[in-house]
């Protein structure tokens, strides 16, 4: 059986190390926060200007001045700090954030990432995605291995406009974990989801990886 979204998020959470400052993208990556292991202390960054993002508020705690980058109401913690957007992206671009977990439309075997626009469709904008992939120390992509149309999303080259070149360090899909030891190197198969064979994975993957 392939991993479901929660299991994928739990697998991604195993990449978190004690003391990490982490930025989680919108969608499946936000689920990672539910799976942080006991004893692992993580500070979440929200690029609209907060470190130390807390959980959703109780109904009587809702504060319109306190939201995350997905525009969801959140809470603060004893460790929290607030800052401007310029400061927020200084810490992102300057390499001070340890890890970012993002969604993707396509990842290429050379680490290129496409996750912000489909030509011919209304483009909503890249938001902070290009800044995150350019500046954060390590980039993990959480995505379905294949699109709804059945196409492989780990590709030889990206066909969609790029978010960043040579930026992805690890891909966690519903079928497997692919990772590379350093940018510029080839992806290797780290782990198969339970019940997924290498043969099946190869049949559903376009981009090259070392088994």
């Amino acid at each position, binding site marked *: 059986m392939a991993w479901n979204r929660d299991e994928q998020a739990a697998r991604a959470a195993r990449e978190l190390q004690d003391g990490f400052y982490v930025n989680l993208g919108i969608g499946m990556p936000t689920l990672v926060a539910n799976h942080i292991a006991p004893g692992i202390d993580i500070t979440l960054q929200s690029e*609209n200007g907060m470190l130390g993002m807390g959980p959703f508020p109780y109904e009587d705690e809702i504060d*319109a001045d306190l939201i995350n980058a997905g525009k969801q109401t959140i809470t603060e913690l004893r460790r929290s700090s*607030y800052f*401007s957007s310029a400061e927020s*992206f200084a810490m*992102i671009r300057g390499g001070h954030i340890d890890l970012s977990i993002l969604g993707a439309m396509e990842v290429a075997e050379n680490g290129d990432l496409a996750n912000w626009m489909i030509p011919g469709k209304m483009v909503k*904008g890249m938001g902070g995605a*290009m*800044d995150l992939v350019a*500046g954060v120390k390590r980039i993990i992509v959480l995505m379905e291995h294949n699109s709804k149309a059945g196409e492989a999303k780990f590709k030889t080259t990206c066909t969609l406009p790029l978010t960043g070149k040579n930026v992805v360090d690890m891909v966690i899909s519903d079928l497997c974990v692919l990772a590379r030891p350093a940018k510029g190197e080839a992806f290797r198969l780290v782990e198969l989801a339970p019940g997924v064979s290498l043969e099946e994975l190869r049949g559903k993957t376009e981009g090259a990886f070392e088994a």
Partner: protein
Amino acid sequence: MPNKLYADAAAALEGVVFDGMTIMSGGFGLCGIPEKLIAALKASGTKNITAISNNAGVDGFGLGLLLETRQISKMIASYVGENKEFERQYLAGELQLEFNPQGTLAERIRAGGAGIPGFYTKVGVGTLVAEGKDVKSFGDEGYILETGLVADVALVKAWKADPYGNLVFRKTARNFNPVMATAGKVTIAEVEELVEAGALDPDAIHTPGVYVQRMFVGKDYEKRIEQRTVRTRDAA
């Protein structure tokens, strides 16, 4: 000291708005937007505005109000996904749009306010964002040239101000507001509360008053929420 305090948003905009002007408008989503100034700018009928703002509001609120009335002809933003009228005007070719990566947008505004005409960044290298831009190598990496941004008028929203225009923002409503305050030829701050001189801790002021030319106290803030997410108290 010249009086920076105006009666309301309309009074604060008087004499500084003109057709074809460039504005900056603070906020992230609908959080920390200058909602009174946007409404007054709509009422002023100012046309052909270039608006620099991270987002474009929603239908019927925030910058969405100025899109409905076709007062904005160009947007410089990082994400505009929440606005149907925006989408319609853009697809019909009625609205110019320039996307910037969010941090590049913030840094262009910071640079503009700090007297820096351009800077090199690795954000967007090898993407559509880099097209037509100067590329320079530092060490073994390529960086693209981005330019500083300034505005004729910067519209910002703060929590508290003192009579000198020193500003304090609240929680994540800070976002783009303090950087935009530095990059307006005229910066107008709308605030929730005006406090006496000396009431703000000088060590805790986010925007020093030198950046603020005009201000007023806004009343009855709507502070709309886009995604109202909550948790429930489990019966233990």
